[in-house]
């Protein structure tokens, strides 16, 4: 029993990280049709920024941690908005070229991170409480899992509120269905593009800081490894669906954890098999619209 609880909570923590990456990916794809390969770089830069902040602030206390979350999110958002504004926008509606540009950006940025911070992983530590454990139903669970889960839930609720209750949220939801019709109502949908990139970048940056605590290191490759699972999550959840991304994040992470434990380390394959099954029986994903 305690193993199951442990695996579940750890899986939820991992799912939280997936969601923080996948939510932005899915929104960006849903609204703009852009597959953003640079999303992992938003995360990595957020993680490094958060780490640099924490390092300079010195103390490993809660305030430093919260500050690093904020810094990670802001840096991720700025990087993403810059990407949209400088690279994506001039390739409006040319989706393949947009993908290629993000591929180039991801190559170049990861190489640059390598140059700046080195290729070795850097171990980090947060508030002491993170290293302690909490007992739930007999399982001893590392506290940083809870932080990731809570952060992801807050982000999810915040996004849902934003999408449902604000005018820009409405524009984004409408744009996911039809960009051209939104412009045909006299709305400058490009503002929504920048905004969606910024939001996605912020979530990824936040996810980067949390991931660096979850895995206890930062490295230029941090984003890339999470990105691939985030891709899988968005396809399984249904491209463009936030709820789909949330559900798929949890499902994928739990599958992975349980398979890793019970089927001796085959988690990644089980996930790919799950992806294949979803494609065979529901090509548009769990909650995707039929195309």
């Amino acid at each position, binding site marked *: 029993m305690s193993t199951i609880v442990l695996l579940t909570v750890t899986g939820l923590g991992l799912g939280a990280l997936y969601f923080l990456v996948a939510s932005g990916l899915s929104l960006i794809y849903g609204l703009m049709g852009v597959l953003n390969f640079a999303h992992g770089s938003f995360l990595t830069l957020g993680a490094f920024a958060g780490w640099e902040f924490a390092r300079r602030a010195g103390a490993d206390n809660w305030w430093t941690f919260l500050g690093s979350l904020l810094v990670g999110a802001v840096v991720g958002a700025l990087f993403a908005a810059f990407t949209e504004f400088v690279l994506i926008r001039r390739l409006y509606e040319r989706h393949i070229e947009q993908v290629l540009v993000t591929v180039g950006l991801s190559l170049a940025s990861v190489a640059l991170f390598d140059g700046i911070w080195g290729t070795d992983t850097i171990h980090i530590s947060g508030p002491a409480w993170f290293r302690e454990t909490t007992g739930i139903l007999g399982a001893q669970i590392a506290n940083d899992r809870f932080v990731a889960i809570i952060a992801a839930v807050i982000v999810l609720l915040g996004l849902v509120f934003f999408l449902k209750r604000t*005018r820009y949220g*409405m*524009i984004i*939801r*409408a744009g*996911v*269905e*039809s960009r*051209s*019709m*939104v*412009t*045909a*109502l*006299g*709305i*400058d*949908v490009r503002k929504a593009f920048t905004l969606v990139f910024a939001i996605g970048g912020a979530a990824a940056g936040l996810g980067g800081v949390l991931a660096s605590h979850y895995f206890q290191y930062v490295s230029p490759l941090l984003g890339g490894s999470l990105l691939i699972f985030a891709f899988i999550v968005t396809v399984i959840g249904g491209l463009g669906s936030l709820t789909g991304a949330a559900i798929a994040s949890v499902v994928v992470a739990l599958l992975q954890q349980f398979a890793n434990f019970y089927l001796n380390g085959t988690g990644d394959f089980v996930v790919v098999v799950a992806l294949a099954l979803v494609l065979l029986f529901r090509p548009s994903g769990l909650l995707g619209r039929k195309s």
Partner: protein
Amino acid sequence: MSQQPQPHPEAANPAATGGPAPATAQTAAQSTTQATALHPAAPQPGHARPVLEIAGLTAHIAGQQVVEDVSFSVPATGITALLGRNGVGKTSTIKAVIGLISRTGSVTLDGERIDKEPTFKIIRRGVGYVPEDREVFSKLTVAENLRLAERDASPRRQLVEELFPDLLKRASQMAGTLSGGQQQMVSLARALLNENKLLLIDEPTKGLAPKIVQEVAETLERAAETVPILLVEQNLQVVRQLAAGAVVLSGGKVVHTTDSALGFLDNEDLTQRLLGVHADAGHGEEADRNGAQK
């Protein structure tokens, strides 16, 4: 340019329509020869400046030319019909006008060039667009669909509520779950909410039951009292009822313009050649066929 609604030829009676035919045909021929101008964009005498002037408009989709050197203008009052068989480029022309597909050529709205502007700016200049397949946002509620369309500081909610009382009752229903007719109401309402200089309406009666077709036609007639409309319409009976002038496309080109839509429709020879139908015969059947082709 008299604009009398024609008697409803539902009970298709060849004798009834056959009676006055020679006279109508003659006037039609006259007005048509005058209006089938070599330079269709030339301003029509006796009218204020056209609200929309199109000259040399060309557009491509996926490397294929779908609008070829199209020139015509839309008078500042009344309804102008844009006619033609399926796939001749009516929808593409309208989309090219508001920049939904990339285009070259000159488009002038109310005296100002708009052909280099992005879609949203053109719309904000005062253009209402009702797309061919309604394109309501299916996962937004009716109320949200309408709110999204509000551009003016004081949108005309009253008018819309009056025209489409049904929508008020369904304000919180997802637009995707509405019936086709109700979706068309939402789509029309989105355009009518704002003060416009011009409405571009693409096949508003497509796939609707005869009764709803009449309702839509009446709504358009009422709207046309205050704003000029460029209307794509396959239902020739509706065209008869509403349109003053007409522009006919074929193969992406303008092949005919007239300031008397009636005259055109009564000219059997022309309609036969350009639309491939016998304008007077079997409107109901023709509407069915249009529906079935989609």
